[in-house]
């Protein structure tokens, strides 16, 4: 059981250059795999490809293979793939259907399209809204939410599909610190309790430090670094790849650069 990308390369329709690849990647159930990298290093493309959106929906050319729980993703029909790999777009506006009048209906849209019984749809919608602490938004108009609220609703609509693999493109980018922590906790619960495998693109390395098990760093479309999250986030090469070290690592280095060893003080202050 796993989501496996093997020697995957992808180019967008009409583009002569390879946007992604070669990439080899495995996401196992219950595991959070973080993805970091500079602007335009291929993070969003990786999400689109791993979820079957590229080339499935937007065209382009792919090489290599994507296998979901032993099945070649290219042979799955859209509704089959949607139950296996749920994709959260970087922009909430891309995710939202723009056809529903309330947040409740918006989150119900996906489950309804899976032909689930009404009771189960309702249960899943409240569960997804509850997981993100946004039950109060249920009667609101999806297009009249703040940026961060829209992002939470978009994520709820993906969670409600209960896919085996969650592919999330910067799910906390528009969220306040408490919202970011809430989403991080919800993702950990999704992984640990329901066994979802999560591919998480995130610029906030503090979030990755907290919840990811492994991570990869992309550079110009290829995997530049991979390994256990603590090893990668402590690696000095991160800065050259346009990735900010987590605050604790950064502070420790700042203090070292100041010419004195404050390791003990910092450790006692930050635990």
């Amino acid at each position, binding site marked *: 059981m796993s989501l496996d990308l093997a020697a995957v390369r992808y180019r967008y329709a009409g583009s002569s250059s390879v946007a992604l690849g070669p990439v080899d990647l495995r996401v196992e159930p219950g595991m959070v795999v973080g993805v970091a*990298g*500079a*602007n*335009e290093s291929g993070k*969003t493309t990786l999400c689109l490809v791993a979820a079957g959106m590229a080339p499935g929906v937007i065209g382009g050319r792919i090489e290599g293979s994507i296998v979901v729980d032993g099945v070649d993703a290219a042979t799955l029909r859209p509704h089959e793939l949607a139950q296996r790999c749920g994709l959260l777009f*970087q*922009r909430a*506006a891309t995710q939202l259907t723009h056809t529903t009048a309330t947040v409740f209906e918006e989150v119900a849209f996906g489950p309804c399209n899976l032909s689930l019984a009404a009771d189960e749809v309702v249960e899943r919608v409240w569960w997804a809204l509850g997981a993100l602490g946004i039950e109060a938004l249920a009667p*609101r*108009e999806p297009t*009249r*939410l*703040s*940026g*961060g*609220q829209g992002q*939470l609703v978009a994520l709820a609509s993906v969670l409600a599909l209960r896919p085996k693999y969650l592919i999330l493109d*910067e799910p906390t*980018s*528009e*969220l*306040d*610190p*408490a*919202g*970011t*922590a809430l989403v991080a906790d919800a993702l950990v619960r999704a992984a640990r309790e329901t066994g979802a495998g999560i591919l998480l693109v995130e*610029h906030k390395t503090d979030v990755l430090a907290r919840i990811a098990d492994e991570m990869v760093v992309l550079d110009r479309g290829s995997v530049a670094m991979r390994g256990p999250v603590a090893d990668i986030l402590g690696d000095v090469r991160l*800065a050259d790849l*346009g*990735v*900010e070290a987590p*605050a*604790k690592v*950064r*502070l420790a280095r*700042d*203090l070292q650069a*100041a*010419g*004195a*060893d*404050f390791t003990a*003080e*910092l450790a*006692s*202050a*930050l635990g």
Partner: protein
Amino acid sequence: MSAATAARTTAAPTIEFEGVSFAYPDGTQALDGLDLRIEPGETVAIVGQNGSGKSTLVKHLNGLLRPTAGRVLMDGEDVRAVHVARLAARVGLAFQNPDRQLCAGSVKAEIEFGPRNLGIRGAELDERVKAALDAVGLAGEVDTNPYDMGYSRRKLLAIASVLAMLTPILILDEPTTGQDARGVARVGSVVAAAAAAGRTVIAVSHDMRFAAECFGRVVVMRDGSVALDGAPAEVFAEPHWPELRAANLEPPLPAVAGARLGLGSTPTDATLVAALVELAPERG
């Protein structure tokens, strides 16, 4: 930016919100009796939880929204009485979502759009485009179609297109969203350069580090009004943490470290390092 261009930026007006309330048509009360005064040349980060009214607040400054109660004044003049075109020459707003803003077929045309509408042509237009592109690091992308660029660079382009208008007030709504470390540093230098040119800079942000390091003043919003207001060292000082947390915010990590070590308020890496070095000079 040349001295000549800089000189043409008119002085920034004083901004006053007087008991401003705003309700969206669906009844959502986004601003609730908000009072706020921003002096010319200030750099102000507006932070607060999702849905606390931050974007709504800044949209009142360029005429996109008009208060349902209270007044917004610029140099004492009610903005309701000011034509939107005149406001546009004074207030540049880079939207949270760049795709609501970008409209041209090339990066150059996109950046020219704003200043052209202000009547700028010829050498000055070219100079403004170049300066704006340099400021956000997109100098090599003049002929690129904006929609061939990734989100992070579209966001930088939206900022550049507003920079080129050289408005005395510059507003950036969530400018660091989706940016990598270098992108955040670029946005920080844009803020510093605009402030050095005497422009008022207002940014909405969820990035506490960005707010603490790049702005002279931090305004915390909660439920449509101002909960905290002051310099980063004041707002992020330990006594305010309960209020920050009530607004869904967290103090920056150096502030937490500094407080636990009894160093006072150290909201940035630099202030924490300075305080520690001072504490233990014999080891330095």
